[in-house]
């Protein structure tokens, strides 16, 4: 390490004020602080010692929490591919082939997201003269996990650039943004290129192979929505009957919970999202209040729908909302983004609850968007400051009342 350190110290003057490459200082600084925690010391007055945490460590914790979803997503991508092309039906058969197929599809998306986003970060850091934001460590991983494995790489790059610039940098970078950056990327793709991120054809990678006879690539959400419209059988029956060529239990509750279903790369597995949630909550990086209230909100709204059911989708058992689509992933990784979420402790309960409510309402009542979590999170991102405003106001009122008593 001495060698690396010496190298850094030798190059440093080049990038410092007056050096040839002083414009690129923040690039150098990013690399240097990535390799070596800086030698800065605390100030003369005030806290003389500091907690061992820093933002890099916090962000990398989130990335690690996403790894179960990523690995499962890769394997499931390969699994769905083989299922659809008639290669296999057993979960653990052809393990290597599935993982390999998935990795070949997923890793390029991850690389492109990191590269495109990293480039934008670097350009902004150099032009705006601010340090490179660690927040991108998380965004670069989140974006690949919320798109289908079949998304063209150029779309991934474009969406990432759009989201980093419009959702984050124009506000001043990590910590200043209003919307969750990764959700913005997904929303961009959704509205700009709907053909590649909606419908029944995009969720399963077929490649050159032909799909087996009778194959439908529909997701559980669209099956449920169709069942609601047709009204000839309950949603649970429709799910069970659907796509029997891929095995009778494709959309069984257990299968959906574990995640052996078509969908975006990282979103299918509720189980893996919960593993991630466990990591985030145990490390204190994400708010358990948002996660708990998010799931509770979806369940409550699902139950309310049951009570006033006028179609089969409304009558669906509320726990199905937990395992279908990206609700779990969205609540665990997107809703808990500390910058775009509510920031007061009371506000977090309300914020999470409303995300759960909205997701189910959008899913069940909106014909255009089968998935509700994306818009629910973005919508509540916008409303989070309002929630906080009232929580803060209550604090001020308490103080004011105390003074006049």
């Amino acid at each position: 390490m001495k060698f690396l350190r010496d190298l850094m110290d030798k190059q440093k003057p080049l990038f410092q004020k007056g050096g040839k490459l002083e414009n690129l200082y923040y690039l150098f600084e990013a690399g240097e602080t990535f390799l070596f925690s800086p030698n800065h010391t605390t100030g003369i007055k005030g806290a003389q010692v500091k907690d061992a945490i820093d933002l890099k460590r916090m962000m990398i914790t989130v990335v690690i929490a996403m790894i179960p979803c990523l690995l499962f997503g890769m394997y499931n991508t390969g699994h769905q591919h083989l299922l659809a092309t008639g290669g296999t039906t057993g979960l653990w058969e052809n393990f290597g082939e599935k993982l390999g197929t998935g990795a070949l599809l997923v890793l390029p998306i991850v690389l492109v997201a990191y590269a495109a986003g990293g480039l934008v970060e670097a350009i902004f850091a150099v032009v705006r003269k601010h340090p490179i934001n660690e927040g991108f460590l998380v965004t670069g991983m989140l974006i690949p996990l919320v798109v289908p494995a079949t998304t063209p790489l150029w779309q991934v790059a474009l969406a990432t650039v759009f989201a980093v610039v419009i959702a984050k940098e124009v506000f001043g970078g990590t910590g200043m943004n209003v919307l969750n950056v990764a959700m913005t990327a997904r929303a961009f793709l959704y509205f700009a290129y709907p053909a590649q991120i909606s419908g029944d054809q995009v969720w399963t990678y077929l490649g050159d192979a032909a799909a087996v006879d009778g194959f439908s690539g529909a997701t559980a959400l669209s099956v449920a929505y169709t069942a609601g419209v047709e009204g000839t059988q309950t949603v649970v029956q429709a799910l069970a009957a659907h796509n029997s060529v891929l095995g009778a239990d494709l959309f069984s509750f257990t299968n959906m919970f574990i995640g052996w279903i078509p969908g975006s790369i990282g979103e299918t597995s509720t189980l893996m999202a919960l593993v991630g949630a466990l990591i985030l909550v145990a490390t204190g990086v994400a708010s358990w209040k948002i996660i708990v209230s998010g799931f509770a909100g979806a369940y409550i709204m699902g139950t309310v729908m049951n009570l006033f059911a006028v179609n089969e989708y409304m009558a669906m058992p509320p726990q199905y909302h937990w395992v279908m689509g990206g609700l779990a992933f969205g609540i665990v990784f997107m809703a808990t983004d500390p910058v775009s979420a509510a920031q007061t402790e009371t506000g977090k309960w309300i914020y999470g609850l409303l995300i759960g409510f909205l997701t189910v309402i959008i899913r069940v009542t909106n014909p255009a968007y089968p998935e509700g979590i994306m818009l629910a999170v973005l919508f509540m991102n916008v409303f989070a400051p309002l929630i906080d405003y009232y929580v803060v106001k209550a604090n001020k009122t308490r103080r004011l009342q105390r003074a006049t008593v």
Partner: protein
Amino acid sequence: MYLLDLGRFSKAHSSKTDMSKIVKLKKGFDIKLVGKANQELADFAPAQTFAIKPTDFIGLQRPKVLVNEGDTVKAGTPIMFDKAMDQVIYASPVSGEVVEIKRGEKRKLLEIKILADQTVSHEDLGKADLASLDREALVAKIASSGVWPNIIQRPYGIVANPADTPKAIFISGFDTHPLAPDYGFALQGEEKYFQAGIDALAKMTTGKVHLNVDGSTSTPAVFANVKNAEINKFSGPHPAGNVGVQIHHIDPINKGEIAWTISPYGVVQIGKLLLEGVYDSSKLVALTGSELTKAAYIKTYTGACVSTFVKGNLNSGHVRVVSGNVLTGEKISLDGFIGFYHSQITVIPEGDYYEFLGWALPSKRLSFHRALGLLSFLNPNKEHVMDSNARGEERAFVQTGVFESVTPMDILPVYLLKAIMAEDFDEMEELGIYEIVEEDLALCEFVDVSKHPVQQMVRKGIELIQYS
């Protein structure tokens, strides 16, 4: 982490017995460090030089020096006053010769150094019978003695104005800062003076004198039988011992109100002034920190030079000497002087080193957090060696909820700090700027992922309000 620590978010419990309060606080964090002072007196050579540092007195506006280099002074001889509040005298803590009046840029007054006599002699300020003094005479006596700057006004945390009458006076009877001195030991035998000080303070307020003691241990002798004051009990992690936190739970400060605070050391000095007729600034100072070979108490006077206690008492070469504690203290040199309000020095390793992948590798370092690789929570009673490394760079606010969990007050620190950054006066007022000083949010500065200079920001906000 929150699941295991639900209690941290619950409201503080307080109950009334008679009139005194018992307050149990849950939020906060104890920074446990290596190098607690043993309860014994160390026999280092006595300090030879002493200094009054005008920069110690927050809110001091136009200091005017009353002595010249070469003058001889006694303990209690006036050496400085503030032209903005000229009744208050800043006096020499020891007898001896004024050897240097040190000025910095723009002739800013930095230090008035006094070379002390072998035995300290005192100005005779006259004993006083409290019963025969009216409030005005009492205030005038204390203000002119050198003892007065011990009395701090809230809001703002500045030297109190003798012209004001506070709604109450608060004394914290225990210090929960890292490695803080144990008042039971440091003030033993001072019972008589402490009581006399309390009696004087009781005369200066229209309200009560609140003495807040540690509810988790037995009350030390010096406080146990105090009369003429409300004794409240506080327990919980740091900052339970901060007087600002205590005020918040007993009788919070609203806009337009004034309360005074004073440390027990200051109370004893008032008592000595009245009973002995002298400004006696002698006190036991705790020598603490992992880098000291001998961590113990030393008997000295306010403003002592630390060199005789520190040089020769170090077990490593590259250290930082802190006047006060590591949360709120001030870095001084090996020949520096202990601050007026400090009764502790802490010596820690200097942290100016690089660390390879320091942000990613597992760390045994102390952390309030539990993010990846931060394992100190597994061993909560371990005493740590902490150095002065800043552990990262300043960033925008990202994490939420953490400041709240180390602030046992109904205050929203992040919103308050953002109001200060925006210089939004109404917002600062409404969010409670009158209730805090730097030390009350010092833990926020410690735990902050984004490494903001929180205490500096708090002072900036207070000054904006104070001088608006």
